[in-house]
């Protein structure tokens, strides 16, 4: 069957099997490998993408069901060569180690901040509770999201030298990090 959808702002049309999962459509057919596949039971959340602005587990959505809808993946978080504050937060606060769960975590975090610009630690923990990270123990992910929230609220002063440095394509960040969480009184 033919399916047409918008992926990261671009119209896409492909011939697919009706049973094809969205996660495999994105990865194998479009080459968008930032979205991962980690379980078969909707438990791990490494496959989280947006469907019409809502985070969904793309292993539980058929590509056909996404027909006529808008899909957004991790590859679209960076806009005009500038990283999203969530991406910068994950770098600044060591919110990732192996990086496998990271795209899904960031997509959920972005959706949370769009609805709630100042989430509490508990609200962040609840937002990501459908996703598993085996490396970080979650505390640094929570800090990463609060870092991004503080930056977006403009409470970080000279925000994100860390993030600015990370913006350089492929360039690592070794500059002093701003501490928006502390200055924002968030902790």
């Amino acid at each position: 069957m033919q399916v047409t959808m918008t992926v990261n702002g671009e119209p896409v049309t492909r011939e697919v099997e009706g049973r094809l999962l969205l996660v495999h459509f994105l990865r194998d057919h479009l080459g968008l490998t930032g979205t991962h596949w980690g379980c078969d039971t909707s438990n791990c959340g490494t496959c989280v993408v947006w469907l019409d602005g809502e985070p969904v587990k793309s292993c539980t959505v058929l590509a056909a069901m996404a027909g006529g809808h808008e899909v957004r993946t991790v590859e679209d978080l960076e806009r005009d060569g500038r990283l999203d504050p969530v991406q910068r937060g994950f770098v600044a606060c060591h919110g990732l180690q192996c990086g496998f769960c990271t795209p899904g975590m960031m997509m959920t975090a972005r959706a949370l901040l769009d609805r709630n610009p100042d989430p509490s630690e508990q609200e962040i923990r609840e937002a990501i509770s459908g996703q598993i990270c085996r490396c970080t123990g979650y505390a640094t992910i929570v800090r990463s999201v609060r870092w991004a929230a503080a930056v977006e609220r403009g409470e970080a002063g000279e925000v994100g030298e860390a993030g600015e440095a990370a913006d350089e394509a492929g360039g690592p960040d070794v500059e002093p990090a701003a501490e928006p969480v502390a200055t924002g009184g968030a902790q």
Partner: protein
Amino acid sequence: MTTTDPRPPGLPADLPDNDHKPLGHGRMHRKEDPRFVRGRGRYVDDVQLPGMLHLAILRSPLAHARIVSIDTSAAAAHPKVEAVVTGADLAAQGLAWMPTLSNDVQAVLATDKVRFQGQEVAFVVAEDRYAARDALELIDVEYEPLPPVVDVRTALAPDAPVIRDDLEGKTDNHCFDWETGDRAATDAVFERADVVVSQDLVYPRSHPAPMETCGSVADYDRVEGRLTLWSTTQAPHAHRTLYALVAGLPEHKIRVISPDIGGGFGNKVPIYPGYVCSVVASIVTGKPVKWMEDRSENLMSTGFARDYVMRGEIAATRDGKILAIRTHVLADHGAFNGTAAPVKYPAGFFGVFTGSYDLEAAYCSMTAVHTNKAPGGVAYACSFRITEAVYLVERIVDCLADELGMDPAELRLRNFIRPEQFPYRSKTGWVYDSGEYETAMRLAMDMAGYEDLRREQAEKRERGELMGVGVAFFTEAVGAGPRKDMDILGLGMNDGCELRVHPTGKAVVRLSVQSQGQGHETTFAQIVAEEIGIPPDDIDVVHGDTDNTPFGLGTYGSRSTPVSGAAAALVARKVRDKARIIASGMLEVSVADLEWEKGSFHVAGDPSKSVTIQQIAMAAHGAGDLPEGLEGALEAQICYNPENLTYPFGAYICVVDVDPGTAVVKVRRFVAVDDCGTRINPMIIEGQVHGGLTDGVGMALMEMVAFDEEGNCLGGSLMDYLIPTSLEVPDWETGHTVTPSPHHPIGAKGIGESATVGSPPAIVNAVVDALKPFGVRHADMPLTPSRVWDAMRGAATPPI
């Protein structure tokens, strides 16, 4: 010397402050993160090659059965299928069996019978992954069911079915016996001790379950006879050698690439049948072949962890001096002995069960058996079975404290190996390199507010509330290892490192170890930067590619920093020594008159006369004369053979609340003080600790691979095998002391597995402490609500 620097959470100091751009060790954001946050990590399943086929494996639905027949005709007729291969096909090529890392053999595809549920029986290669799975449904296997051996305690019963009848002369399910320590001396101490406490303990079977499952892409070039294998492996060089030995491919024609790895934790150390199948499939079809297991395959067939049934006995004086520890272990090794440990250590490093205490005697005997369960045994960040050893000693020390009516922290403080006793030879022969245990323990107690916690607990008990405080102290033995003692299938556990400084002063360092998320691209750049004064940004770290890195045994058992980190520091010093000679020529002074200041040499007494490492690099490659006898270029290579293991340690305190109405355990606080010697990147160290603590919550409260009487795996999906989410874990409170290793070039000890080792007993001790009003002295993991409820009713049972 030990220094302390507590970092409770919530304070700005606990954030990655990147206080300054370090020219060496220090907090620094990770060099690998820019690609990961863009979704541009490069994992095995991201590899797409032209014409690539997909492989899927048919697995046994039964735990123990004879294979009567396999009919693959319908699968082979599927229009998208290119090949169907069974064990019989492999046997014709002599490839049906492969060696395990413990000198056993394991079936690549079953030929005679299946020995665990999920065992590999046949594989299909098809045009896409969906078609490959479809074709599995078309394979018809007739099984003759056999009675399974599930209970480790009855595996050696005379009437137990023999699982390993593939081994000539095998008449039972015995795997191996092992002992350590002095039995007679230990028995004698137990005879005269005031107090003896015994406790049966089970460390249930668990699974590392990294977020990325195992997989590979094999690309065999028939013309050149060259195999390129992208593989989820923590040990690419060791795997290359084993493929050469098993498949008969010449080693120089094999290239193993381990790209970004989505978590390993030991799960990606062994060679699995799926990897071999992908190689065979690529050779058979002449095309690249991808195999990527699904989550159930990962949980049911790849390396499990733990599965020890232990009896712990501890002897002490009435006033709390611990005299001896004695233990017997019944170890379940599954259908094949796939333990990944140095060959002289069939029980891994369980011999450190004497813990952090100065004893008079110790003895352990172990019996390992086969059952109809998946093979494995050393995985899940266990530091070669030190998780089990630390759990044993830290649980029975708490049982002793209960018996003596002593505070568990006080009992530990009385019995620690004292700083002046290092290097300390334990009663089981391990030489602990350095430690200041009391300092770490007291720091943890200060951070936790230990006395206040006990007061709060007393008040709550009066109100019927169940609050528990658990203490654990651990010592690890990591960094395997000295080649005189340690090898894996004959390969000495040493690691190479190569450093090249380019003419413009930028550098590339090549490692034999491979990151699975530990941040090697950052840490190793910092190690080299510290020694040679080139900024970490200017040092590229190459790893995970056997064609482009020197030989070494890989990353597991917390060995990267202790072994490969030492290699990186020493190779940098070797380059620096050469740079010194070149500098002496450039400055026209003798080598002895030069002083090194990180990044440059200057003439002693005249700092204005200096050359930077970058200038030296250009001179090394330049057209001018070099000091006599010196070759051009600025590079070196070494292979590091550690003198001893390193012994990181830590003090952990856990606070739990147990709901008296539902028996749900809530981990309210967790204080972790770690000492990993010299700290290279504190941000990364804290991240490693956080992850390990979360593993501990998983094992203590949730994670277990259970089996029913038929040998059906009851933990075969993430709906059944429960892993902590953000809601089950607290914010972590970390602190540290620094006691450098005296024999390591930079004093570093390794941190990767410390928290996974140390946290489970702290949590279990806390839960048992909370249940004290019910007279509970012990309850086995996982402490799920139903199991805690049973314990509260005096009906606690082992999980197996």
